[in-house]
């Protein structure tokens, strides 16, 4: 099931309501469909936040199984590591251009108290995800966060969106990806977004620093089994923000650090911090062309590589923040924007859910 590395071209789009308004999936499908020609039908996917309000405190595992044996093995495994509150098929409908889907099943899980003697809950869940992906043949965790989910597969993104009936989900953050891989793996797990806990990443580009990013993450117990460069981004946010407790704005400067020539000209306090981040987190620096949108439960972050080798446009309208590979993909769903801009290389665009929003 695991496939080889996937260099890609791709389209990305993201939208969020900072007021926490839930929007159904038809809008984001319209946006990503506008960039149809940036994909080649070999992968599309979506991440949605706020979609499971009734079970928002449980880990929602979206699973992909190659066969029934993998499903049985995973469910047997779950019995020992989680309390399973509910499990069900992920609703889908037949759609042209989508075929050979794996078994798609979702689980709402709680971690038994007894398991948390030596580990934090999230570390425990992270380890479980790593274990399933590397140890259970034919099983793959598509997403594992709370009150969120990833919907992805092989096909054009608009077809994948309809296949998963995204019109039935309401989310305050949507991100989307259309894929243009330069080889043909046809593997559902290889589509974006890549996720871990509530982190999701859609990525246009290729990480030239993958080798060291991977080795660095392995030092902290992450297993990079998917052999695709995008997963390092999800894991790096997990490491830097969740485990090392860096503010997201600082984590971003580790991944796309300012140049030394600019750091040298900063105010002393800023300079000290920027230097420290590069010294300590040099191995997390991402090289190569990329534009990415990272989703998490409290917001959305857009980021370009340090010399902007991939396109990215951002826009705002009232409480809405939009980001996409092309401005047209934003105009398609909101023609009347308050402000539109092209984020500078290495400069993050950050959307944050208002504090009062649950």
């Amino acid at each position: 099931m695991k496939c080889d590395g996937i260099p890609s071209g791709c389209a990305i789009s993201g939208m969020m309501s900072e007021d926490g308004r839930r929007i159904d999936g038809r809008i984001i499908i319209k946006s990503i469909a506008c960039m149809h020609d940036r994909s080649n039908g070999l992968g599309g996917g979506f991440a949605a936040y706020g979609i499971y309000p009734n079970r928002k405190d449980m880990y929602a595992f979206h699973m992909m199984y190659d066969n029934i044996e993998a499903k049985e093995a995973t469910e047997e495994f779950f019995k020992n590591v989680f309390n399973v509150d509910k499990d069900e098929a992920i609703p889908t409908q037949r759609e042209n251009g989508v075929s050979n889907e794996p078994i798609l099943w979702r689980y709402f899980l709680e971690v038994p108290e007894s398991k948390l003697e030596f580990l934090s809950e999230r570390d425990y869940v992270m380890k479980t995800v790593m274990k399933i992906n590397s140890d259970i043949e034919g099983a793959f965790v598509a997403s594992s966060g709370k009150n969120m989910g990833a919907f992805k597969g092989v096909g054009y993104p608009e077809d994948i969106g309809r296949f998963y009936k995204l019109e039935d989900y309401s989310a305050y953050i949507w991100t989307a990806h259309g894929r243009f891989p330069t080889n043909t793996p046809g593997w559902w797990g290889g589509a974006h977004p890549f996720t871990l806990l509530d982190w999701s990443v859609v990525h246009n580009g290729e990480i030239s620093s993958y080798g060291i990013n991977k080795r660095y993450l392995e030092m902290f117990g992450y297993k990079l089994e998917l052999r695709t460069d995008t997963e390092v981004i999800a894991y790096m946010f997990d490491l830097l923000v969740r485990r090392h407790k860096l503010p997201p704005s600082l984590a971003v400067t580790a991944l796309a650090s300012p140049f030394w020539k600019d750091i040298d000209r900063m105010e002393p306090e800023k300079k000290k911090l920027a230097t420290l981040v590069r010294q300590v987190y040099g191995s997390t620096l991402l090289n190569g062309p990329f534009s990415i949108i990272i989703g998490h439960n409290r917001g959305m972050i857009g980021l370009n590589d340090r010399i902007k080798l991939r396109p990215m446009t951002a826009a705002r309208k009232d409480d809405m923040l939009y980001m996409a590979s092309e401005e047209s993909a934003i105009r398609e769903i909101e023609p009347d924007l308050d402000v539109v801009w092209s984020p500078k290389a290495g400069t993050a665009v950050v959307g944050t859910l208002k504090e009062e929003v649950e």
Partner: protein
Amino acid sequence: MESQLPAEFVVNVDHERCRRCKRCVINCSFSAIEFKDKVTPNHRLCVACHRCATFCPESAITITENPLDYKYGYNWSPEIRKNILKQAESGGIILTGMGNPRPYPIYWDHMLIDACQVTNPSIDPLREPMELRTYLGAKPEAIEFEGEHDNISLKTELAPQVKLDIPVVFAAMSYGAISLNAHKALAMAARRMGTLMNTGEGGLHEDLASYTDRIIVQVASGRFGVTSKYLNNSAIVEIKIGQGAKPGIGGHLPGEKVGEDISKTRMIPVGTDALSPAPHHDIYSIEDLSQLIYAIKEATDYKKPVSVKIAAVHNVAAIASGIVRAGADIVMIDGFRGGTGAAPMIIRDHVGIPIELALAAVDDRLRQEGIRNRASILVGGSIRQSADVVKAIALGADACVIGTASLIAMGCRVCQKCYTGNCAWGIATQKPELVRRLNPELAADRLCNLLTAWGHEIQEVLGSLGIIAVESLRGSRERLRGVGLPQETLDILGIKHAGIGQ
């Protein structure tokens, strides 16, 4: 005893072209050329240092290997036969200089570097920034903050760091092994290029006092020149446990080289042999090393990174791990091809392991133990070209050290006669009339040119790799492939064979 050894080289003088200026006679510091009505070589004394040929205004001199053939014997090579003759005549250990010249595998030459095509673009180093800056020193695992949300302040206090503008530093070569002018050239070049030179174990001459922020000062088993001032006037303090050219043995600077200046710098009487014992006599275990590391940190008020230099030997990974846990900020690993001013040939040629394998093993081990961030890794022991630097960094080194390459840049011809003190190029000698031949300013220019050239070459490779900062190459073994290496070697190096994709 009359020597039966044939001459190693033949000096050919074209007497038609020679205009008898005697410049060659003056320049030959090995007395291999005399003037008897005409230029007359004593072939037996020639070491092929090229000094005469370089300075002959008529290009009338060529030096060739003595074509004297030996009866063929694969097992009994001419070299082995000559060594036996030497020992039969002298009864002594065969002494030699520079690094291991034997044809062991050179793993650098079996590794190839990746490049970008199409999906991830290669990057033009003339258009885009290509950052080579490197910081040596211990890094914490994570940055820590105090406070919550918007009101946070930095809690992490970083251990001392030393900035390098290029990840290449000059290797430890003592004042004694090399001349003061060579030391001055290295210090000047280190300052100009934003890198470091290393005193070696012979102390720091007072003329170099103004360069101390660019100098690694060494504390070796002889403790020559070690004072509180010496430790504090430095960028880094290095404890020398071993040297790649002679792992496990000490050093010996003969008394005839210990003149007024060296005596003062090393703090030993004029004319006495400077003996470095094989071990430090206060280090017989890892906890003793830890004591010395912390004694130095106390003496320098925790303001200097402390490096520990070891030779690459079989168990190097475990040793390096112990060194990091003992508190070292930097581990310097010297491979078996590293150079020396003087070493017994048996040690130089047969002891230690290649730096490529040692580096890969150490980097792996420190990562497995989750302590790679706690020390920088410096590697040396025959870094010959910028490609070796790129490969070393991709295997996991923070920076490389160059000894022999820096000497060659200053004029060294690798004749391996450093231990004689007759260096015709003014580098490995203390004879004032020879030392004078090395102009520190000009030698510094040559060193700067070499590093500038290497810097540009490294940037070219980074660009072709689609990388614009050297930290994204560091440890990125995915960008290397092996050619013609057996699987076990590939596994040790942590690289795939060429032809295998991601």
